[in-house]
């Protein structure tokens, strides 16, 4: 009997990789097609709470510079973080200044605004998020668009933002917009020290590290970040040294932060109907399933490896 089990375990170790791919695919597909059968509770970790609290504890109508350094490839991880920040910020009446240092970032910023604007509220009036919270362009937010140059742009806007961003995404002169008056210093120059917070959403370089190096550290401005899982281990030292005030790491953190924001909105009587790319909580179900599967693969793979080695 023991021999049969050993042989089965050895056979499992020799399974064709294509079967494994198929199992992973099915493990993702089924929870995505039938999400109601797989409910998992989401508990916010301390890092997600830190991010949430930092935005929450800012005075109302604070000025937040939101930077987009990612594209559609990593949108599944980062877009839910951005949409949650937008929801929390508009609810807190913060003023948002969006800019992109990646070409795709411009598109992602437009999509994020569009997503939040169209979010439906679960009420009898079938209201939209933007019916309840003010989302007026040039009053509550401005999209400065994309500027190439990476580090040089960050370095430049620490001195004068309008030198780098003359016109916004709609080709309107940035300097002439009402919202920009809030971040002008006494001499009328818009520099980064006028902002209360930098929120960097990045999937690589140029990204969060450059914002810390060239803007946050030299100008002493708080910075929070939402990044892909791959980047986390490189950025954690900055969190420990408090150069980075809070970090959202990958999809689990996106889902946690989203649940915190949705809870606070619900407390204020606004229950949102989430969907698609801007939504993180439902994506955690297939993610957890696959993690479980990979753990099982690793355990069985190792057992099989040792049994085969001993047999030889």
């Amino acid at each position, binding site marked *: 009997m023991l021999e049969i089990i050993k042989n089965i375990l050895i056979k499992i170790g020799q399974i064709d*990789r*294509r079967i494994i*791919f198929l199992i*992973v695919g099915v493990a*993702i*597909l089924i929870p*995505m*097609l039938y999400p109601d059968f797989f409910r998992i509770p989401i508990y916010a970790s301390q890092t997600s709470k830190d991010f949430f609290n930092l935005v929450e504890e800012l005075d109302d109508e604070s000025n937040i510079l939101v930077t987009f350094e990612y594209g559609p*490839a*990593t*949108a*599944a*991880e980062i877009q839910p973080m951005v949409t949650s920040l937008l929801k929390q910020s508009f609810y807190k009446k913060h003023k948002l200044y969006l800019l992109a240092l990646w*070409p795709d970032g411009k598109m992602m910023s437009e999509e994020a605004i569009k997503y939040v604007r169209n979010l439906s509220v679960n009420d009898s009036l079938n209201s939209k998020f933007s019916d309840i919270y003010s989302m007026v362009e040039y009053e509550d937010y401005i999209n400065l668009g*994309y*500027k*190439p*140059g990476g*580090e*040089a742009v960050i*370095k430049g806007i620490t001195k004068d933002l309008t030198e780098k961003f*003359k*016109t916004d995404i709609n080709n309107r*002169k*940035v300097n002439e917009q009402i919202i920009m008056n809030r971040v002008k210093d006494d001499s009328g120059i818009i520099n980064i020290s006028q902002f209360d917070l930098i929120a960097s959403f990045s999937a690589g370089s140029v990204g969060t*590290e450059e914002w*810390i*190096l*060239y803007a946050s*550290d*030299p100008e002493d401005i708080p910075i929070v970040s939402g990044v*892909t*899982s*791959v980047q*986390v*281990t490189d950025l954690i*030292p*900055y969190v*420990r*040294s408090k*150069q980075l005030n809070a970090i959202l*790491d*990958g*999809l*689990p953190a996106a889902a946690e932060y989203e649940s915190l924001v949705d809870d606070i909105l619900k407390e204020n009587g606004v229950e949102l109907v989430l969907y*698609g*790319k801007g939504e993180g909580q439902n*994506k955690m179900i*297939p*993610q957890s399933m*696959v*993690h479980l599967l*990979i753990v099982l693969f690793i355990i069985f793979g190792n057992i099989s490896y040792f049994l085969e080695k001993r047999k030889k």
Partner: protein
Amino acid sequence: MIFNIEIIGIWIAVFLTLCIFSFLYKDNPFYKSAEHIFVGISAGYAFTLSFWDEIVPNLFGRLWPSGIDSNNIFTTIWYYLYDTLGFIFSGFGLFNRSIFPKGGLDRGYDSIDFWYLIPFALGIFMLFRLIPKLSWLARISIAYSVGIYAGLKLYAFMNSSVLEQIKDTSIDLTKNGWGIFEDIVIIIGVLSSLIYFYFSKEQKGIIGKISKVGIYFLMIKFGASFGFTVMGRITLLIGRFEDMIEYGKSSVGFATPIILAFILVSLGLWSFFYDSTDNKDTDTN
């Protein structure tokens, strides 16, 4: 379903995604063609974007801004040169003057900035790499870029990534017991990992033992990085599946199931009739 340009785009996106996924079976013509299309489009996209978002507004926009009074001879000559470029780049008047529109470029600048002739010249020098006799000129541009980048990076990196991190690698006695323990672990980790990369002395005796501790710390780091990478990749896969499910609906003409069936049948036929690789060179693990 209204068949419009957006629907065509969705069908192409589904087709290319499934072509890339087909590599999980083995290397095949679908994957190869999608790979080549991706490389070609990426290069074209990057070139177009750099030109329209970088060169046109930042360089041409500063050299030939619109709304400048050509009341002196120099400005008149300068804008005559601009009009000549406009004529040439519009295919000698055959097409619209999209790069150099009449009257100058409206990119938010209200005066000519001649300093930008220097980067203009350096940019042109870069192209001289294509002419062997003048390729030495490109070295000036490269030297300029490397120098600027190194100078920009040096201070910021030394300050934020070296000095601040060294400052944080210390034992803070004001913390509680667990905090102090964490600090001690970090100090041991940093020192032992650094010793592992110290190659001026043979790693024997005490140095060897400390570097072995460093290896364990590094392995933990690599393990964490690998775990996070797997998590990230699975999320990307979920993102693609999300789109595939969305594009499988009737509103877009059941793009996913139709293209999936087409690729599966084609792959089956290709494997049966043409493929002679017999799994050689197809290890994707």
